[in-house]
């Protein structure tokens, strides 16, 4: 079915479970994500979308199951998770830029400290990427001097500066004023065109329809339905998905 299903998956999620105290938020989730996949996850509030995404780079500690990233089980306590996180870019709803550093410093900190790049090398790469998202001239600004849309584009670039193998997005446009949503989605669209592997939790149905290779509907801790975007939106099978789509479209 999936055009990208070639070779071993980049991420293999096996029987992933997550409890907060007694509350089972994720229930036995298994899913494979291949290189070049753009997986959009949609679903009602509180259904566990963020939790799923955050388990992928162990920002949340899974309560059960395995996540093989490039062949290594990162749920295993013995795995050096910090190393693998360098290969998994993460973009948050609230941007989470470091307010005490200039944009350039935000972008080069991790490459310099973690990948041992020289300042020069790191800055060159950062400026190149900044240019790509149209923000080269803001390199020396501080985050608070930028608009929300600009901040989020910087946050994406910050993750890209580590040359990740996969990018995780958690509702990257939900905190933006409507007229800024477009500029961020455009950057993400370009990334997808460059065959970046992406997992995107989003409420932007238009984006999902257009860009995703697969759309998944999460509800009650499961993926209730998964499909190619056209089928998914035009022929939903699950009742809850139908109800959900009727509300948000």
């Amino acid at each position, binding site marked *: 079915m999936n055009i990208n299903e070639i070779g071993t998956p980049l991420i293999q999620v096996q029987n992933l479970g997550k409890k907060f105290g007694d509350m089972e938020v994720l229930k036995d989730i298994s899913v494979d994500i291949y290189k070049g996949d753009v997986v959009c996850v949609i679903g009602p509030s509180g259904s566990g979308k963020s939790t799923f995404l955050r388990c992928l780079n162990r920002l949340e500690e899974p309560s059960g199951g395995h996540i093989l990233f490039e062949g290594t089980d990162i749920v295993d306590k013995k795995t050096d998770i*910090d190393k693998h996180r360098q290969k998994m870019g993460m973009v948050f709803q609230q941007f*989470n830029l*470091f307010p005490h550093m200039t944009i350039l410093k935000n972008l080069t900190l991790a490459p310099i400290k973690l990948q041992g790049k020289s300042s020069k090398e790191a800055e060159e790469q950062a400026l190149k990427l900044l240019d790509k998202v149209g923000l080269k001239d803001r390199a020396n600004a501080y985050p608070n001097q930028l608009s929300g849309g600009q901040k989020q584009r910087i946050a994406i670039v910050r993750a890209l500066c580590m040359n990740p193998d996969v990018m995780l997005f958690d509702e990257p446009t939900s905190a933006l004023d409507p007229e800024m949503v477009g500029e961020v989605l455009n950057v993400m669209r370009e990334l997808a065109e460059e065959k970046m592997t992406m997992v995107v939790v989003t409420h932007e149905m238009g984006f999902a329809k257009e860009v995703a290779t697969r759309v998944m509907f999460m509800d009650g801790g499961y993926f209730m339905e998964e499909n190619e975007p056209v089928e998914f939106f035009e022929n939903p099978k699950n009742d809850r998905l139908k109800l959900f789509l009727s509300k948000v479209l």
Partner: protein
Amino acid sequence: MWEKLRDDFYQNFIVDDRWKYIVDGLQNTLKITFFAVLIGILLGFVVAIIRSTYENTGKLKILNAICSVYLTVIRGTPVVVQLMIMYFIIFAFHDPGQIFTAILAFGINSGAYVAEIFRSGISSIERGQFEAGRSLGFNYAQTMLFIIMPQAFKNVVPTLANEFIVLLKETSVAGYIGLQDLTKGGDIIKSRTYNAFMPLISVAIIYLIMVMVFSYLVTLLERRLHKSEH
């Protein structure tokens, strides 16, 4: 009335160079406050790091327990009792000098409060900052060092500066161990001239001026921190 004030002033400060009690006392007060604040900040910083680390990672269990006892005891007893214990019990068989004793007692006392200032400074940094650091691949220590601490420190600088004011006032009980601080300086004059008004009011005014000047400096500092672009 005016005559009387002038006469009182003369009696209380000029005769026998009594103003020296005030000046000497003030010096001691400032000396104790300054060094106690330094000790307090150092101690508080270490304690805050230990407690935050324990809370976030579960490590440093024993150190954390020690810190808890320290915080409970120091925050659970009056500073003047601590001062006397330091002087008459802890240093019963070795005298490092009254000033040093006072600096240590007030410093240790201050540390317990500064620790909470730092801790609330750390926890005032949004969790998202920590997660952003970790998700880039920084480990716990690196995230604290590069991302959390610089922001936390900036947040608490005004409160820390305020700690100087708090201590300045607290050291007024240093006289309990026979040390001549500003308050005691006024006391001595009072005991020479049998006049309470002039020395007490003067001492109060000197404290007030110091606190006001320092508060003003803290405000300036706050404004500058606020203005700075980050």
